[in-house]
């Protein structure tokens, strides 16, 4: 009786998964072998042609490079900044909650809104940033959105501004979970502050930080909104995999080809997702061990 | 194994529990009589807690049977078994008064007891445990000993068929442990409900037990009255558990 009841609870979830996860997944893989277009009409099988095009496409290689570069730089900076901020905020003082709340606001807002907002801050003429720089005596302030050296940096900067608070939050949780008596033991053991940080704080926070970095990385690999808002989808120095996909599917209307691109991206994301799951499992077993 | 048990309340037959490839209970047989207090002694990791969880229905054995009052309950959910489990951690609801904590199990869905009955039971349990004066105090303001009394009281109000205790006094000060041990002994005489009591404290074991069951290697290595186990331990390990080395 218990088992049958169990199935009754599982079946809706399974159905949901099949309709909204499995079916689209399979249909997109199938689409990757056709030349179907967004405007409908007839389509035919083209075999592996789409896939061979993806791998021979310099645009794809460039987008992979841009995406990985963006992900690595953004996540690394967010991690470092979030952790440093957490170290500074990991104590009780008046106004701490207010500061935390303020810091978390960017994270709560939709990235598309943030992208547009920063787009105006970055504007060469009207933008607040350049007006401040100009007022500060800089006659030729940088052109954030058009200078090829700064475009990707601008996107990274906004992402960092949005997501460092997330890392801060995770870091605070990590710092808070380190038992106080370990610090007391280290004090008794005469460890310097640097040694306490290096040998206790950092390694004990590391699993959680690693997990946070992985989560952020899976998200950053899908970077779309900020690029769309700040430079548009078709800029050589900021085109990410997602904006390339957008270009192929929605502007070029090549659903079949786009599906092939998407499949390849999917493999990348799945690899990372497996990483996340493994990290989670490892953390759980470590915690279970500690609880004894 | 000598003592024949009259009118058994609980019968375990060939109970087997494994965690992964590790066998914890290896075909364990045990019979507990009505109104009996059975002490389970064993080294850390001997499977004492697993045994209690199996009786309570929190752990399903891969083989063997669990019968309560003559009914096979091997696969029955905990709610149907009518047993009460008291842990070493007091686990009270902190924001609630003692009264509300005590009444909680009686207000469980499906019980449908009237407020009068609930009140009467709570008062009865509080009197037995000498905590009448604490009924309106918030649980978090109690001392450790008071908390454990309330925890026992919460198991008591249900008037379960069997009481299971998992080292209920371990987290208390040595002095307090002595006092509560005496109270528990007096209490069980008034209740007449069978109890299975896990402990590693030999004073507690010897003082409380009708019979002592020594758990080792996933089976009952020895079972008998305090005197018989103390006087004729079957192995050196049993002797060590009783502090006779």
């Amino acid at each position, binding site marked *: 009786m218990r088992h049958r009841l169990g199935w009754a609870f599982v079946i809706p979830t399974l159905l949901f998964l099949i309709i909204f996860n499995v079916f689209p997944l399979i249909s997109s893989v199938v689409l990757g072998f056709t030349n179907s277009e967004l405007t409908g009409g007839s389509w035919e099988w083209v075999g592996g042609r789409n896939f061979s095009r993806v791998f021979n496409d*310099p645009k794809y290689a460039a987008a992979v490079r841009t995406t990985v570069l963006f992900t690595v730089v953004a996540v690394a900076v967010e991690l470092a900044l979030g952790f440093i901020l957490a170290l500074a905020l990991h104590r009780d003082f008046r106004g701490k909650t207010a500061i935390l709340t303020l810091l978390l606001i960017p994270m709560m807002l939709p990235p598309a809104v943030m992208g547009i907002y920063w787009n105006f801050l970055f504007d*060469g003429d009207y933008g607040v940033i350049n007006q401040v720089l100009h007022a500060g005596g800089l006659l030729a302030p940088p052109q954030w959105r058009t200078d*090829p050296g700064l475009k990707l940096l601008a996107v990274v900067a906004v992402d960092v501004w949005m997501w460092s608070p997330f890392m801060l939050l995770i870091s605070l949780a990590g710092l808070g979970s380190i038992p106080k008596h370990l610090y007391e033991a280290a004090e008794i053991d005469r460890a310097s502050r640097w040694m306490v940080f290096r040998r206790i704080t950092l390694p004990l926070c590391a699993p959680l930080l690693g997990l946070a970095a992985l989560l952020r990385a899976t998200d950053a690999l899908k970077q779309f*909104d900020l690029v769309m808002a700040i430079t548009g989808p078709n800029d050589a120095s900021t085109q990410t995999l997602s904006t390339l996909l957008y270009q192929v599917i929605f502007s070029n209307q090549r659903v079949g080809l786009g599906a092939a691109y998407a499949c390849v991206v999917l493999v990348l994301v799945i690899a990372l997702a497996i990483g996340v799951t493994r990290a989670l499992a490892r953390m759980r077993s470590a915690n279970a061990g500690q609880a004894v | 194994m000598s003592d024949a048990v009259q009118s058994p309340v609980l019968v375990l037959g060939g109970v087997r529990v494994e965690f992964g490839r590790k066998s914890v209970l290896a075909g364990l047989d045990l019979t507990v009589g009505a109104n009996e207090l059975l002490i389970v002694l064993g080294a850390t990791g001997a499977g004492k807690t697993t045994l209690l969880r199996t009786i309570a229905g929190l752990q399903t054995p891969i083989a063997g049977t669990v019968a309560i009052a003559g009914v096979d309950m091997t696969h029955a959910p905990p709610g149907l078994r009518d047993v009460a489990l008291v842990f070493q951690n007091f686990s009270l609801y902190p924001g609630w008064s003692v009264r509300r904590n005590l009444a909680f199990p009686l207000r469980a869905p499906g019980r449908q007891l009237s407020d009068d009955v609930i009140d009467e039971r709570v008062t009865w349990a509080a009197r037995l445990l000498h905590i009448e004066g604490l009924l309106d105090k918030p649980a978090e303001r109690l001392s450790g000993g008071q908390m454990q009394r309330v925890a026992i009281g919460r198991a008591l109000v249900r008037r379960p068929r069997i009481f299971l205790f998992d080292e209920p006094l371990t987290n208390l000060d040595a002095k307090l442990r002595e006092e509560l041990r005496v109270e528990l002994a007096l209490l069980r005489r008034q209740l007449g409900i069978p109890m299975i009591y896990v402990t590693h404290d030999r004073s507690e074991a010897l003082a409380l037990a009708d019979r002592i069951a020594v758990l080792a290697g996933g089976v009952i290595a020895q079972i008998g009255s305090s005197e018989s186990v103390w006087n004729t331990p079957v192995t050196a390990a049993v002797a060590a558990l009783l502090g006779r080395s």
Partner: protein
Amino acid sequence: MRGCVPVRERFHARLADQWEYHMSRFVLSLAIIFSTVLTPAFAVEPTPAKATATEPLTIWWAQWAPADGLQQIADVYAKETGTKITVHQIPWGSFQDQVFLNFGNATTSFDIVVGDSQWLGRGATRGLYVDLTSWLPGAIDLAGIKPQALSNLCEYPSGSKHYFAAPCETDAVGLAYRADWFTDPAEQAAFLARFHRPLAVPKTWTEFAQVAEFFHRPAQNRYGNAQLTGRGYDAMAMGFQQVLWSYGGSWGDAATYAVHGHLDTPEAVKALEFFRTLTTFGPKGATNLDYGQVLDVFTNGSTAMSCTYFAFFPTIAKQLGPKVGFAVMPANGERHAISLGGQGFSVSAKIPVPRQEAAKKFIAWFNTPAVQRQWITKEAGFTANTAILASAEFRAASPYNAAFADSLDHVRDFWNVPVYNELLASAVKHLGEALDGADAQASLRAIADEHEAIFEDAGLKK
């Protein structure tokens, strides 16, 4: 794109524009994802509406001044025939996406679309546009239409006499300049001293570059010129291709679809390097200016010359008045090529036949000389009617009409094959790279490689 407003308001207007653009794209993406996922399973055939002569028609066009003019003309048609017509305006940024998404349905929400010239190939070959080949010659006096406009805006393939659109808005890139600066005696003297010729509206690209360099004074917040360099849709391609053609390069051979040997020649490289030089005489961010920004930097009074579509000139004229002059784009010796703009009327193939007929009736009426004479009185209402274009009445009606009429002799267009958008995206991306500092030859070669691959993939390459 909008009326005469101070800078701050214009900024807010741009903000609103972009917001709308991004939100519409976002919502659109969601809609597409859900529709592609769910359509196969749950598609429901909509019941086709019954058509009568008086049933209202819908036209989709981009959101800009000419569309307001078209609505006014359509209101006249409603009075005359009883057929009500609504012109639905969509922001430029999502115009293409919305139209083609709508074509994905069994029935379109519009009867007529005023589609970009490049869309012809896709509309024609995917069965989205009604084939007008047999109808158009009888309904409109084709001999009276400027041939360059007809072949680029209405025919697919170009020169095949197969028609999929009829003329609506005809457009070309023109030159707007600050007449007040050009006539300033002090400037004239300084220019003469420096370049040993009088300061005049440039007729060649060399002269253009000199004038641009002359007026480029960033310290005084004055800039030489503004070119179309936006990366979003086609601005960059429209801005660059006229220089490309004028220097002797081209996008490729329309017969064989060969691109190497046309786009990566030394002439083409020179054209791109020259185009890049022009951006160095531009305002901040000159390497990435879309249509709105080119308009902005000129109407805010900081830039000497700007090259953009005539459709924007009424706005410029209204805002700057006598301070501004208009001219034909410069040539390079013999070679003179100007980017075509504008859109033709196409009838949706996904509406019932009676509605198609009703739509055709309006299109024929619009192209009668009498209506075309009304059309040119509307803001940015540009005609392709040869007689009207040549008339003294038209040439004198506005400060830019004469230049417009003269420009049409030199218009050429980007590829209008079905895969035009891939070609555009690839071109715009690599041209952008070159403007951002990459090697010009490498960028052009990259475009050539990609374009040939796209043609091959599309089965066009011979």
